[in-house]
């Protein structure tokens, strides 16, 4: 198991330092942290968030304007 963890850490370092940052941000939901409260749905000014198949919030990237309001309101800090 330790070997797997080391591989994961190395992969993370590679993915973080090995790539240039994209100019436009993108917001997504960590479904393991989302508690389906719907606060982000009520605040999104673009009507871009709705519940997905597993009952967790999903952001429609074609509607999202990256305003970031959802990230400030999420009680579980599930948006990144």
């Amino acid at each position, binding site marked *: 198991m330790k070997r797997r963890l080391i591989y994961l850490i190395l992969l993370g370092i590679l993915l973080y330092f090995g790539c240039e940052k994209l100019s436009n941000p993108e917001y997504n939901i960590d479904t393991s942290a989302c508690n389906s409260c719907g606060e982000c749905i009520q605040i999104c000014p673009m009507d871009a968030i709705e519940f997905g*198949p597993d009952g967790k919030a999903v952001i429609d990237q074609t509607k999202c304007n990256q305003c970031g309001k959802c990230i400030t309101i999420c009680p579980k800090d599930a948006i990144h």
Partner: protein
Amino acid sequence: MGCRMKKNILLLLIIVFTQLHLSGLTQWMQVSLRNFSTNAEHDIDIITGDTPQAETIDTASKGGIFWQHEISGNLYRNITFTLENDLLVSEMSHEFKNSFFFNDARFKFYYRNGSQYLKLQYANRTCNPAATKFLNIPDMGHNTQQQMIHNTALHYKGNHGRFHISLYGNLRNLDYEYLTIEEDEVFESESAWDNDIYSYAEFSCNISDQWRSFISGYYKDDLNNSDEFDDSNLGIGLEFDNRFDFFNALKTKVVYYNNNFDSIDDEKDHYFLTEARYTKRFGNSLTGFVTYINRSCYDDDQSQFFRISNMLRVHAKYTYQIRNLKDSFILTGVKYNPENDGNLIFGEVNQYLLKDIYLTAGAKYASELFSTCFVKCEYFITPLRSVWINNKFTDFNNKPAQNIISLGTTLIF
């Protein structure tokens, strides 16, 4: 359309409630009175957003009531249902909400039979236009206002030996109004619908007890536009999920998506998602987890990888007193999310005070976005009934600070 929809909802309610006597019901209800206050300057129009030319706006404290109700039970042998309803009636304020008067109802029916699972869901959100802000619907400018949203979704999951299938479809209708300017500068309000279809399919195979491979397809069709806001992708991925023992568990997932959309950057056509979550227990009192999520993409034209976002979350919880009603605990954690300015640190304490009274307090600090804290005191009248008072204060970096006091009760019966 509205009249027909009301009849349908009424019919659905009658059908459901005539069946309720067939089995026991579980109800959960939470009602709270809210008071909102802010230190906002008179420079924000709460209807249209940031407009420095706005007239003087009342920033006095505002009241409201929030009622959440959930009923669940069995209809037949393998069919269960859940009715959820959230009603917010509040005065307009600077609070981060689109609507201050809405009713959100969700009807969910589940069928479970061994390896088969089916969910049918209808959700309806009705807003009072007089207490609702404008939305920014793509292609419609800034004067659209949501009136009602319908979501009709169907989700099927089935296991066939080592193979699994998941199918999902959602038809979404947004009923909105917008203003048109006539030649003589008379504004006229018109109604319109924004219709979207979301569909998702996933086929997976268990390679071993820990490893799973899957392919998935996602398709979104914006029925109002030709294809500008359509979105589709194909994914292929590998998942590892193993609980090594009672104290250690690891779940990882690596997925490649081939995106096809016109309204998003071409750099994201080749999209990579990497997720890892390691959970660790130290005895019965201390638990924690580490989550790492990376999103990257590869641009064909520039022959280069780009990172979209990284999120590292470390979370630990120490339970120092186990009680029947609520445990007493301390939890703390950090989230590292530099690409979206989402770095933050948080902590929470739940403490048993005295006979059936608990105190919960927490704080959160995100250097780029906000700092917030809350205190909640809850008294359990019985194990299933409690009354509580909660105060939450949030200081935003680029928005007015706000404070919400809630006095509520939670009932399970």
